[in-house]
């Protein structure tokens, strides 16, 4: 038994594990248990309409709301969009963040002004999503706007292009905004992970004559595994619950091409009809998708040693 094993060492430290994680647990119970359970329960009821407190549990057909959501073409579309938008921004984002991390943590090839660059690259993340959306809307304005003025005066186009009315253009603009807002954040997380690696490992490698490339792939990356898992899982969660930018940039338009899953949930629950039950069912489906994908990431990133 585990217990006896620990007793052999003379003292059990297990109680500190419970003790130190207690504040987290209590705060969760106090502030979030009720809202969470309430949401789960709602998915199995006929709750609808604000101020209408009486609702019934669907005893005969408990999965009715789930079926309704899965049958709605708009929901399926919103899941597809969410994936597409996430992939379009995450792949370039993690690639650039890794490259920058390699550049900025290289012990031989010191980049001058790297302190400045590290600080500045995170800055797009400190503006609110609403301000960013307003800015990009203005930049891509039609028929008048800086980007269109530039395209026309440079002779690249004869007339203005309506970016916000093209699904492809709008998707790329959203993906770019997400990429631009988050690559600095990801880079900082990765750099902090590199800084946590014991410098003695690097010193040993240098003495052995390893080059930059070898050091990055053989030492930095393997030691970053846990932090990379964090980055992958959190951006997966963040990306699949993407809401602010697509909502405020173009409200999911044109033709629902940028409608995301959380926007769909919000529309169900809090706009107009207050279809709480369907919104709750949709959020549970989304939760299951996120959980399954996170589990895959954990599996792929597991410690193979």
């Amino acid at each position, binding site marked *: 038994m585990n217990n006896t094993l620990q007793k052999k060492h003379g003292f059990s430290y297990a109680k500190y594990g419970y003790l130190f994680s207690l504040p987290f647990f209590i705060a969760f119970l106090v502030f979030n248990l009720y809202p969470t359970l309430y949401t789960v329960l709602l998915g199995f009821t006929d709750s609808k309409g604000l*101020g209408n407190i009486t609702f019934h549990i669907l005893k005969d057909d408990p999965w009715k709301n789930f079926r309704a959501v899965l049958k709605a073409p*708009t929901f399926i579309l919103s899941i597809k969009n969410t994936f597409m938008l996430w992939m379009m921004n995450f792949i370039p984002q993690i690639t650039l963040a890794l490259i920058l991390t390699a550049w900025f943590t290289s012990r031989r090839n010191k980049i001058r002004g790297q302190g400045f660059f590290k600080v500045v690259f995170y800055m797009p993340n400190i503006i609110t999503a609403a301000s960013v959306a307003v800015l990009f809307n203005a930049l891509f304005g039609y028929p008048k*706007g800086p980007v269109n003025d530039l395209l026309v005066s440079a002779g690249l186009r004869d007339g203005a292009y309506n970016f916000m*009315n093209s699904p492809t253009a709008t998707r790329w603009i959203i993906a770019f905004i997400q990429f631009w807002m988050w690559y600095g954040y990801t880079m900082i997380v990765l750099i902090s992970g590199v800084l946590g690696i014991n410098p003695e490992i690097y010193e040993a490698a240098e003495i052995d004559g390893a080059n930059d490339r070898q050091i990055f792939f053989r030492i930095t990356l393997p030691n970053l595994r846990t932090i990379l898992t964090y980055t992958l899982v959190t951006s997966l969660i963040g990306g699949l619950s993407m809401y602010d930018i697509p909502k405020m940039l173009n409200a999911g338009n*044109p033709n629902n091409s940028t409608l995301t899953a959380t926007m769909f949930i919000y529309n169900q629950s809090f706009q107009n*009809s207050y279809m709480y039950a369907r919104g709750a069912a949709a959020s549970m489906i989304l939760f299951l998708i996120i959980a399954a994908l996170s589990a895959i990431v954990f599996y792929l990133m597991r410690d193979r040693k």
Partner: protein
Amino acid sequence: MKKLLAIVLALVMVVALGAPVAFADGKTTINVMSFTDEVPNMINRFVELHPEFADKYEINTTIIATTDGLYQPALDQALASGGADAPDIYCAEAAFILKYAQGDMADFAAAYEDLGIDVDAAIAASEIAPYSVEIGTRPSDGKVVGLGYQATGGAFIYRRSIAQDVFGSDDPAVVGEAIGAGTQSWDKFFEAAAALKEKGYAIVSGDGDIWHAIENSSDTGWIVDGKLNIDPKREAFLDLSKKLKDNGYHNDTQDWTEAWYADMAGIGDQPVFGFYGPAWLINYVMAGNSGGSAPGEGTYGDWAVCPSNVGFFWGGTWLLANKNTPNAEAVAEIIKWITLDDSEDGLQYGWANGTWSGEQGTKDTVASGTVMAKSNGELDFLGGQNMFDAFVPANEYANGSNLTQYDETINTYWRDAVRQYTAGNLSRDEAIAAFKQNVADNLDVEVDF
């Protein structure tokens, strides 16, 4: 460092705990909930002018902007939860008034007559715009639960210089004739658009400009007996919008964007002839964007108003009272002063003449016809024209029976579908199908495919 952190933390806790401020000076509190400071400022003015009221009551205002989609959830929650924090008076904008006066939340509203207001007599005496009363009337018992102070009946606001160039005169009667004022049809409008196009002018800035007029001139609303209903006049917006775009009759702008504002200053792709809108569009939007502040600067002073070809209204704020308010008498006094008082001491006289706050401000159209009849609506922006001449009939003409509580959302879906059609991304049938799918999936409304 650690000590500093500890001190800051302790301070945070103390301040945070002390944060809820107690109201304890023996006065009764009236809670007001609104989405701008416009109505709260009016109520403050009322308190200023009535010291005997100020002795007994104090006002606690909550303002939450509509722009981030937060006002309605907060208001709904506050009404549903009740208690001492529940609003006594609350405001609703045209986009969502139906929900509070006729829809899901209507049961929370107090009938004006139950507050002790002799509402029918006052409406008749003040000649309140009929569409405004219609919207504020709860269908379940036929009682008035909400009224406004503004009237937002719409007219056509056009450039005098362009009118002279194309139609030979800038007289509102001539221009009104040219666009088919009062015909309830778009035929003359398109004849005028062709004539304007020949001389290099666009008749309107974008399709949003005609949408507001079309929306409110339709005979039925989006929902009839719980089912989605596409009124033929609204369906026609697809074709009208396409016609505008294909012929280059507009600059293809979207309302509330840079290019739309530029057209007010006359610096867009083609000079734009006019805008459909109520008086507030002139004061709040066009005057500021005309590129000047006195006649001769920019387009300032080059505008005039004539009646619209179709009747419509756009925007407006309604005041409602909580049916559970413990202060019915005080609430009634405030509401009466704002919505029904047609004397020179009432709010509306000051609002119409721009003098309500004590200084000369912008003039606006008001709900009471009686008040407008004794007020002066001359504006320098309109070259000295009295705007009430066009807007008083417009208020009579507007229709309040085609609204539903989901309009804001459904309109967004419809306008996107129309844009997809006019841009050639979807066929006409595909656009209608996409629109129906959106309504079916997002709202609790039956849809026939």
